[in-house]
């Protein structure tokens, strides 16, 4: 009767969840939105998507080999795939291939492996990659192609898409006819030319925007699908509701207050909520385990902080989309939130001193 030599303690039984289990379910949750995005933007988007995923996995394998650890298990747990997927989702659909590779490189190497692999990074790798690219390659990162469903007339066919991805947009003649600004970018440029709200959004339909039929990043156009994926993930218990709810609530509250005060200068909450980037940030980027606080109260504060920063940057900042910066800044604040917001320990008050609930003898007499 040989039992394990090494004495093992703690619970001898366990839930059979594992890291792979969680990662694959998150990937499942974001696949509908990505599929819709790939459908909207056709072949070039698919090329970019595959290039980004591949380079993410290759970079991860390379770093693990460099660190002298066998790469196979770490690759199989899907974390590199998920990071690459999220980076791809935030890129402009027709971006050149080297944007995808650079994004994946920054996310995996600088965002994760430098800190020591899974579970050790301080900042969300996908957002780090997006911000680094946005600041270093402003042109490539802000050319938004029109929605051209895969098999419709104006969609580039397979060969054309190959040239778009691998030799840049300049290669095809009618490049500028095919691109334009996203809703938020358009509003910001209009504001700078002193046109005010009611007439800018005259022909803009919030519902189409919400569905995802608009210019935008590869996987972040359809707020509806992202929202559904997020709710499913909460139902599955993979993420908690605290961060998405407090983030969306803060953005809606702030935007409705400002919209009521001055509807000419501040866009309505519906326009805010219909942007896919906000939904993706709320459900998939801000709720990244490693870089968000670990207590529900802390998560509420984290979500509110993200919402506030997103609103501030979108309204007054130079960059149209504030989600990336907001999440990075709040990731920097997460250790502080964890340090000061802790659950109350049983038998201790908020300051950690034992409770003075001792029952005096007289009290027991009556």
């Amino acid at each position, binding site marked *: 009767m040989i039992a394990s030599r090494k004495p093992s303690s703690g619970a001898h039984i366990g839930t059979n969840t594992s890291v792979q289990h969680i990662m694959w379910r998150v990937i499942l949750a974001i696949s509908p939105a990505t599929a819709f995005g790939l459908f909207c933007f056709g072949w070039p988007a698919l090329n970019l998507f595959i290039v980004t995923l591949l380079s993410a996995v290759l970079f991860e394998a390379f770093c693990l080999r460099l660190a002298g650890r066998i790469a196979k298990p770490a690759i199989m747990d899907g974390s590199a795939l998920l990071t690459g997927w999220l980076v791809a989702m935030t890129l402009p659909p027709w971006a050149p291939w080297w944007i995808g590779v650079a994004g994946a490189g920054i996310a995996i190497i600088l965002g994760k492996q430098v800190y020591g692999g899974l579970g050790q990074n301080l900042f969300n790798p996908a957002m780090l990659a997006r911000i680094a690219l946005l600041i270093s390659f402003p042109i490539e990162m802000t050319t938004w192609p029109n929605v051209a469903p895969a098999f419709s007339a104006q969609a580039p066919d397979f060969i054309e898409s190959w040239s778009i991805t691998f030799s840049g947009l300049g290669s095809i003649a009618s490049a500028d006819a095919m691109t334009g600004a996203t809703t938020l970018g358009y509003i910001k440029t209009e504001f700078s030319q002193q046109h005010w709200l009611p007439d800018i959004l005259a022909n803009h339909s919030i519902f189409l925007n919400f569905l995802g039929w608009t210019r935008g990043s590869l996987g972040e156009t359809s707020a509806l699908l992202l929202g559904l994926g997020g709710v499913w993930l909460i139902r599955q218990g993979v993420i908690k509701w605290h961060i998405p709810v407090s983030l969306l609530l803060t953005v809606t509250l702030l935007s409705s207050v400002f919209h009521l005060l001055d509807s000419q200068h501040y866009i309505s909450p519906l326009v805010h909520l219909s942007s896919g980037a906000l939904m993706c940030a709320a459900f998939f980027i801000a709720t990244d385990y490693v870089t968000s606080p670990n207590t529900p109260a802390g998560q509420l504060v984290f979500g509110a902080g993200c919402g506030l920063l997103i609103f501030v940057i979108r309204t007054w900042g*130079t960059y149209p989309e504030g989600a990336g910066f907001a999440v990075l*800044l709040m990731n*920097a604040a997460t250790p*502080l939130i964890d*340090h000061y917001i802790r659950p109350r320990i049983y038998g201790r008050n908020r300051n950690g001193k034992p409770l003075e609930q001792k029952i005096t003898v007289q009290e027991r007499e009556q």
Partner: protein
Amino acid sequence: MVHNRTFFSHIAYRITAFVNLACLMLYCVKNSLEKTVSEYLLLLLGTALVNNVVLVKFLGLCPFMGVSNKLDTALGMGMATTFVLTLAAIASWMIEHFILAPFHIEFLRILAFILVIAAVVQFTEMVVHKTSPVLYQILGIFLPLITTNCAVLGVALLNVQAQYGFMQSMIFGFGSAVGFTLVMVLFAGLRERLALMSVPALFAGTPIAFITAGILSLAFMGFAGLYK
């Protein structure tokens, strides 16, 4: 956890001390107020976040890297620097307007400013040594080093360069100090978590701290354009 809660009340005590100091200053120059309060609030936010003295103007990097491995010491250092910076901003404005300008000896500006800053730092050192010897022991060499902190002299010179009035230069000094403390505390939280991680040996210690500081400054660029 136990000690940081008492430290929390310690900070609250210091903040209230600064607040009534600020109110006192505000009161004695109230009549020279020509700008509205929201103007000052915007200036404060602008200096603290938008052009943050450490992450955007890259001033005061040596204490930022040197003292930020523990949250309490970072907070202590931030408080000490705030105390020095605000006093230095006020003193430098006075020297500029009452001594240098009337006698046209602007060429002595840096010398005079350094003299005042050194005095203020020496005074702060005595205060810290008296109030909390533990903090004094932990900050060690970095406390007198505030004199050479380029943020302190930098802010004083920027005040003069931007021809800020008395109120504005004080708000500018206080704002950049708040920005400094905010970033110090954020960075200290990050480094405390880094210390518990198994970072690859190649990056362990200072290299990973530099990378993190770089990413933090990248994140602060999000505030660009918020305030001209």
